[in-house]
């Protein structure tokens, strides 16, 4: 990895045209994320957190302004290229884990490997990844519905990391877990960050945000802190 920031937002504006009138979700947002950072994004409901996360995850494109992921400008990229960017450089962790119920745990983790153009599936790497998120070997062949919420989130983290992404994007990663399990997950994320993974996390919980090393506060579509 070179010295350039893993993510740059330059005057990013996102406007949603609605029949009742345009709604500006983000209004001139600028920030940089350096490699190895652990950032939490906080803000009240409707402040633009989800829009920001969608733009960071290349699931959406800005109305104006530029977004760079590891030096690549996303604005002019096709749907196919954006999908490849998500596959190769971004890992997603969702509040509701979002594992595939038809696949067992190993298959869930290897799934992103199968999306890569080489389609080289390395189950041993998946097993090592699952062990690194402290999941017992005996659970590997279970389906997601057969394990607890905390264990499902560990599987989701392993899945997000399997393609060695530059950035890990987390949307309320502990929002659906009890406080003890949530703390365990946050310890795990801190550990990953210490090992060099860049993490950007959306949360409304100050306790969870305290695990990060920088907090971006957003209100009415603008960064306020």
């Amino acid at each position: 990895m070179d010295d350039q920031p893993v993510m740059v937002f330059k005057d990013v504006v996102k406007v949603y045209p609605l029949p009742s009138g345009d709604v500006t979700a983000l209004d001139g947002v600028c920030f940089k994320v350096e490699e190895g950072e652990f950032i939490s994004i906080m803000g009240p409901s409707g402040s633009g957190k989800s829009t920001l996360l969608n733009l960071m995850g290349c699931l959406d494109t800005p109305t104006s302004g530029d977004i760079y992921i590891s030096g690549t400008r996303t604005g002019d990229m096709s749907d196919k290229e954006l999908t490849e960017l998500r596959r190769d450089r971004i890992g997603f962790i969702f509040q509701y884990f979002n594992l595939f119920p038809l696949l067992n745990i190993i298959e869930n983790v290897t799934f992103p490997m199968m999306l890569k153009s080489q389609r080289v599936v390395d189950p041993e790497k998946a097993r090592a990844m699952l062990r690194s998120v402290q999941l017992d070997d005996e659970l590997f062949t279970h389906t997601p519905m057969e394990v607890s919420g905390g264990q499902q989130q560990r599987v989701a983290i392993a899945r997000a990391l399997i393609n060695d992404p530059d950035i890990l994007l987390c949307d309320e990663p502990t929002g659906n877990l009890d406080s003890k399990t949530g703390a365990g997950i946050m310890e795990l994320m801190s550990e990953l960050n210490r090992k060099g993974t860049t993490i950007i996390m959306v949360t409304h919980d100050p306790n969870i945000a305290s695990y990060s090393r920088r907090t971006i506060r957003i209100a009415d579509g603008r960064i306020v802190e």
Partner: protein
Amino acid sequence: MIFWEIAKRNIRIHLLRSSLAMLGIVIGVVAIASMGILGNSLVLAVSDSLKTVGDSVIVTPHVGGTMGGFSGGAGGSSSLRITEQNFQQIKRASAPNIAIPVLQTSDRMKLGVGSDEIVAAIYGLNPDDVPDLLKLKEGGYSRGDSGVLVGSTFAQDNNVKVGSRIAIGTDGNKGTLRVTGIIEERGMAFDVATDSAIVVTKDWFDQAYNRSDYDKVVVKVKNLDDLPVVKTAIENQMNKRDKIVDVMDTRKTMETIFQAFGQITTFVSAIGGISMLVAGVSILNIMMMSVTERIKEIGIMRSIGAQRKEVMSMFLYEALILGFVGSLLGGIMSLLGGYAISSVMLQTTEYLFVPSSMIHIIYGMSFGIVISLICGIYPAWRAANLNPIDALRHE
């Protein structure tokens, strides 16, 4: 092939509704294939019963034609005959093929003392021509004028055996003949339909009915490719000025009959095709349900890097599996159904295990698979083009 695996598992997890969708395809394949097999078996059955007469050119007086060289009453088409002179012209035109003149009428006859009189067709043939035209299954050809050959159905229906006597005419006034042979079954025939008839010598016919002009001339053509040539030669010879004979190429007529059968088969298969379309709508419906149920899953896949075409392939695989399994089961059931229908309707299954019948099973199965795939395209396209953000938010 993780998308193939997901498609398989999704079908397995929704086994009941998947089975119902497949049942539609099974019914569609069975309908198309069974109708095709039945139609083809009918064609083969008719073809078998007609093949003995597919090598002839049949010359008959032109109905409504001028009297020209023919004898008979003025304008009465029923009294039109072919004279000996005309026959000789036909014979020359069709040489070296054999031209056989045929006399034909029907009369009352009695088959034994105390039995009822029946009416049957009587053919008068030159004894020398009979072996070229008719094959016997029993007895021998009659040489003298007192002998008669009988058709197989005639023999069976009237319990006639070689050696039986038949009194011809009202109260036997035309004379009594002895059966010398029983003719092999000929089925439907354009030349002489002897199955329910009797065949006497030309001389006896002349003497009994007092006429020597012919009702038709049958030309047996050795090389089937010469059929049109012989037909044209006779027409050119006989119909130079006026159309005085009708010339029928039996192979051409058979082709027309088979063409009509083919059209009927296509028509009934098309009716079977409608049931396949209904099955296709059922597949479409199931696939749409599958997409709606899995919108969130599609959103997750797209967000972690699945391309549109990969999402699309997952749903197409699902449609393909439904179509393939349904078609396979339908193909097996068509074979069983075809066997049952052939056994019941045609009393034989010899026409079932032939390529021209089996191909209808392949048609039915291919149609089933193609319809399933076509009906899977729209749901798959819809799934692939979902907005990932909207899909992720879907509950």
